[in-house]
């Protein structure tokens, strides 16, 4: 069962670990030293949906204790990849190891926090009732009651919803609702957090606060895999996986990516890599090109 590590006092998102004066930064944060075994290792991971492959033989590793950003345009397979990691995606082939276990193992279910793209909470329960229930699923039994209470209070503070704790989730705004969904994933202090577009629809202040929270969580030793299609969030990650049409274009740190492509921003780097990939595809022949276009036209995640 999960334990809240003693002395891991909940960091308040409004008292960030980074100095508050360092503003939105293209200064990428200092990554903590990665331990040997990666949190996620993928070897030839392919996902087929219907007859169509959505992920094409991906190889990558996500280091522990860091924030890895999963970036790419919508429909490129980010959500599918995240669902494969948490073990809710069907038809995954290849080797996908998460926290040393095959992805989807029953034992992993209490060690991973997962936030889906759409807020998945009960609209007809209050924020606290939602968290109470999910907390009881993670740490069942009367013996854990006081631990659950503390845990719920902690995550409500972490996502800054203390003033709305007893409001029905259905009455919250979109941004507040997605923070409730995030709070559920933070319950039980998971070792790996898989967050599918957690900052979508949030105002800049909240987005900054949440990224500060993510960094605080990573500083505690947890691993975060965060997807986004907003490139400026990339600068806040320790590492980046750039995706496009079910392939990984780059797997690097934001700094290295910029240096490597000679671009000023990650967005510039991404566009450079896309152009490069397109040029290669065109050179490879018209067949591939037709295929790629068909992929883009279709709608994706879920």
């Amino acid at each position: 069962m999960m334990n809240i590590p003693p002395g891991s006092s909940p960091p308040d998102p409004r008292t960030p670990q980074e100095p508050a004066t360092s503003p939105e930064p293209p200064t990428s944060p200092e990554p903590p030293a990665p331990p040997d075994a990666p949190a996620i290792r993928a070897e030839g991971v392919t996902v087929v949906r219907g007859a169509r492959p959505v992920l094409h033989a991906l190889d990558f590793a996500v280091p522990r204790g860091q924030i890895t950003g999963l970036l790419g345009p919508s429909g490129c397979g980010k959500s599918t990849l995240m669902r494969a990691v948490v073990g809710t995606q069907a038809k995954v082939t290849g080797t996908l190891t998460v926290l040393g276990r095959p992805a989807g193992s029953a034992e992993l279910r209490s060690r991973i926090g997962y936030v889906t793209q759409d807020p998945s909470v009960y609209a007809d329960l209050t924020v606290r009732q939602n968290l109470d229930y999910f907390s009881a699923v993670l740490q069942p039994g009367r013996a854990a009651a006081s631990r659950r209470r503390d845990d719920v209070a902690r995550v409500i503070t972490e996502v800054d919803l203390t003033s709305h704790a007893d409001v029905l989730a259905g009455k919250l705004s979109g941004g507040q609702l997605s923070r409730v969904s995030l709070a559920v994933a933070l319950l039980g202090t998971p070792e790996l957090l898989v967050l599918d577009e957690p900052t979508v629809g949030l105002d800049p202040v909240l987005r900054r606060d949440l990224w500060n929270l993510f960094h605080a969580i990573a500083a505690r030793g947890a691993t975060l895999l965060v997807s986004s299609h907003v490139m400026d969030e990339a600068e806040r990650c320790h590492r980046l996986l750039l995706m496009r049409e079910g392939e990984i274009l780059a797997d690097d740190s934001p700094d290295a990516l910029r240096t490597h492509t000679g671009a000023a921003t990650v967005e510039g780097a991404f566009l450079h890599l896309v152009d490069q990939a397109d040029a290669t595809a065109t050179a490879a022949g018209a067949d591939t090109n037709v295929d790629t276009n068909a992929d883009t036209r279709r709608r994706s995640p879920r």
Partner: protein
Amino acid sequence: MNAARTLATAARVLRQLRHDPRSIALMLLVPCVMLVLLRYVFDGSAGTFDAIGASLLGIFPLITMFLVTSIATLRERTSGTLERLLAMPLGKADLIGGYALAFGALAVIQSVLATTLALWGLGLDVIGSAWLLLLVALLDALLGTALGLFVSAFAASEFQAVQFMPAVIFPQLLLCGLFTARDRMQPLLEAISNVLPMSYAVDGMNEVLRHTDLTTTYVRDVLIVAGCAFLVLGLGAATLRRRTA
């Protein structure tokens, strides 16, 4: 299966319902109002009310629980909470057990209200014990929960889920012996009615209506309804997939 997680799920489902008092009122009061209506429709022939009233005491919980469960589980599927729960350490049996417990509790209240009203308020003439009526009603509710859960896997929207009600319930209603005794039906229809669980629910109610003590037919009927409920619950569990496309 973990008892604490099952109970937590049941408590959560009831807590959701508590925020929706109108639904609770509809679930509890509509059967009572229908019974009152029926009583005065057959004002002249007390015998008809006895026969139909007893059967309906078994049918109401089945229909209500079917509707409530199919919509509730469908919402769980479409809101993404099901995916979240199945990515967490929750057993499928915990989820289904939780729903069955919560709606079962509600069904007990509904059945107690309807049975009390029918026996003592409307003068339904039942020879057997009211407890035996209640047992059938409860098992019917469980069967309704199971059917609703199972059917919700095949509905993509609330709109479709509601359409499953006539598709799944009405044929049983027509063939269960409520309108014509089953042994007087066309043989093919009788054969079909023999494999539909509601027929046994109504049979069971009629046994209590006509006999002072526990009959073997009643025991058979109860076992068949319970067996069907658990079978369909199992099928429902099989439709919950941790991994989806």
